[in-house]
């Protein structure tokens, strides 16, 4: 049996659709239920916060996990990234108040974000050690309230940004849902994981080609 860490929220519905192909019973897996573990013959699905998926996988709480590339980059654990599942597409971007004419960096530049590591690395590579203001939600508020000069956040359509008077000024990285694996478990459970990955690969390809 494979233990897979599944994130609540944005990606849940699509992941469920995908897993139903392997095990019809998965249709009863309910995100809003208080039960955090759902077991079928093939899978043990564990429901976790999106940001925790790589942590569960790295420390061996789950053999596999599905999460956004953004979360993988933020954690930077030594794990395998087996497949791009081709949904949950979005960008990790820098956004500023729409009044700001030009994206300009200066010493003391403040960035509000929950992606502390991605942000530090991106600006660090540009030669600026920005001041990072770690927020756990409603990041869009920060520039409006003059808490920060910019934000780094996930952008899907850009509607949220626009509604809060912000604009996307730079894309740091493109993100989509990924299948990740614990290094040791990919090896010790190879005979279980391999066929699953192969079938998943086929399935995604079929879906992609319509």
């Amino acid at each position, binding site marked *: 049996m494979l233990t897979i860490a599944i994130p609540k929220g944005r990606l849940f519905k699509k992941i469920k659709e995908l897993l139903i192909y392997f095990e019809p019973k998965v249709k009863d897996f309910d995100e809003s239920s208080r039960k955090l573990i759902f077991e079928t013959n093939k899978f043990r699905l564990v429901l976790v916060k999106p940001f925790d998926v790589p942590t569960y996988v790295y420390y*061996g709480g789950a053999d596999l996990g599905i999460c956004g590339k953004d979360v993988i980059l933020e954690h930077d654990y030594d794990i*395998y990234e087996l*497949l791009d599942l081709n949904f949950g597409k979005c960008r990790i971007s820098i956004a500023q108040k729409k009044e700001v004419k030009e994206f300009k960096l200066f010493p003391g530049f403040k960035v509000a974000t929950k992606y502390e590591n991605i942000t530090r690395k991106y600006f660090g590579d540009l030669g600026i050690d920005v001041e990072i203001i770690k927020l756990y939600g409603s990041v869009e508020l920060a520039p409006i309230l003059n808490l920060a000069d910019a934000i780094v956040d996930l952008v899907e359509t850009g509607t949220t940004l626009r509604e809060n008077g912000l604009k996307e000024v730079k894309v740091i990285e493109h993100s989509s849902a990924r299948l990740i*694996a614990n290094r*040791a478990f990919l090896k010790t459970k190879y005979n279980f994981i391999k066929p699953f*990955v192969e079938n998943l690969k086929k399935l995604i390809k079929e879906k992609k080609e319509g």
Partner: protein
Amino acid sequence: MLVPRGFNYIFENVYSGLFSLISKIKSIYEAWGYEALIPPEVDFKSTFSLEEEKLFRFLDKFSGKTLTLRPDFTPQIKKYVLFLKENLYPLRYYYFGNIYKDEKSKRQNFVTGIEILGELGLEADGEVLSILHLILNITSKPFQVDIGHTLFLEGLFEELKKLLNPSQIIHLQNILKKKDFSLLEKFFEESNLDSKKKEVLNFILNAYGGKEVLKEARKFVLNKKMEKAISDLEKVYRVLEIYEIKDNLVFDLSEIRGLNYHKGIVFEVFINSYPFPVAKGGRYLVKETEKVWGVGFTLDLEAILQFVSLPEEKIKVYLIDNTEDKKLALKLATLLRKKGFIVARDIIKRDNKISLEIAKKKNLDFAVVLKENGFDIIVLNEKKNSENKLKEIEKVLTKILS
């Protein structure tokens, strides 16, 4: 805070476990003709090739050189051999000790390992893997040893470098490191690789399994290096067949990592249900000119300890003596210790009740209270065999008193 991040106190249960494990492993090493060689915990930074930010560094006021806590034993042993005036190859060394890496997780790890050095053929790799198997057999869990060869990928990349630019090479190495099947396909679309190379790369990501992987790999050999990798692996397999330990072997040509000094056979050990490798090793060059090689492994002892059944715990007796003449207490303690009990004496003057409470909290099994006119035996913590042990203590006491 009691300890800095990544460092630990070691307590009784772990320490006892480690000692019993050490003595078992040490006797295996000795039986195969290995000798202890324990380098200093502090050495010149130049000894090691690990990235600087992972080293604990400080300045040596005598030499002016940068020193570091050792992150790895192998480079120290290799250096020792380079300084030897006389060569008596093959040299066989084993070690136990701490290694230090300045990382987010545990920064101090207690490890053991061996190194064999000399003009070594593949029998050496076989010997090292055999010893590793014997150690892993101490654990009660199934394990697997994944064996690869650095030359397979090295040879492949030699061919790829003729076709790809340096940034494409780095990108491809990252894809292989992450085993990213989707990115590999995308990479194929974007680069001008011929179908033969694409086939090899596709094979690499799946080149994992039993002996059949080597047979399959033969089809994809592009140059002498790749050829040597496969024939080396086949030879080692034959050695391991003779030692009858081939069942736990998995061939892995897909793994791009390994320590940067390894050249040749490399391996990693996994214990089922444990999420990290418990041992790593491989072959490395000691002296290029004289073709002196080393082969060795390092094993994480604290990880292994979780899978080893601990020696049976001894019964702990607390001896409270209310008599004036201490002779009886000392005699009793000596006799009980001889019979395998752990006996600690209550040497603080206080009310018996307090002594008993403390002994109970410390998880001791029995208390013996000696009085001028006899004795009491009190069961502090009930265990399976408490009744028998109680009788045994009683017998010893009656014998002394009569």
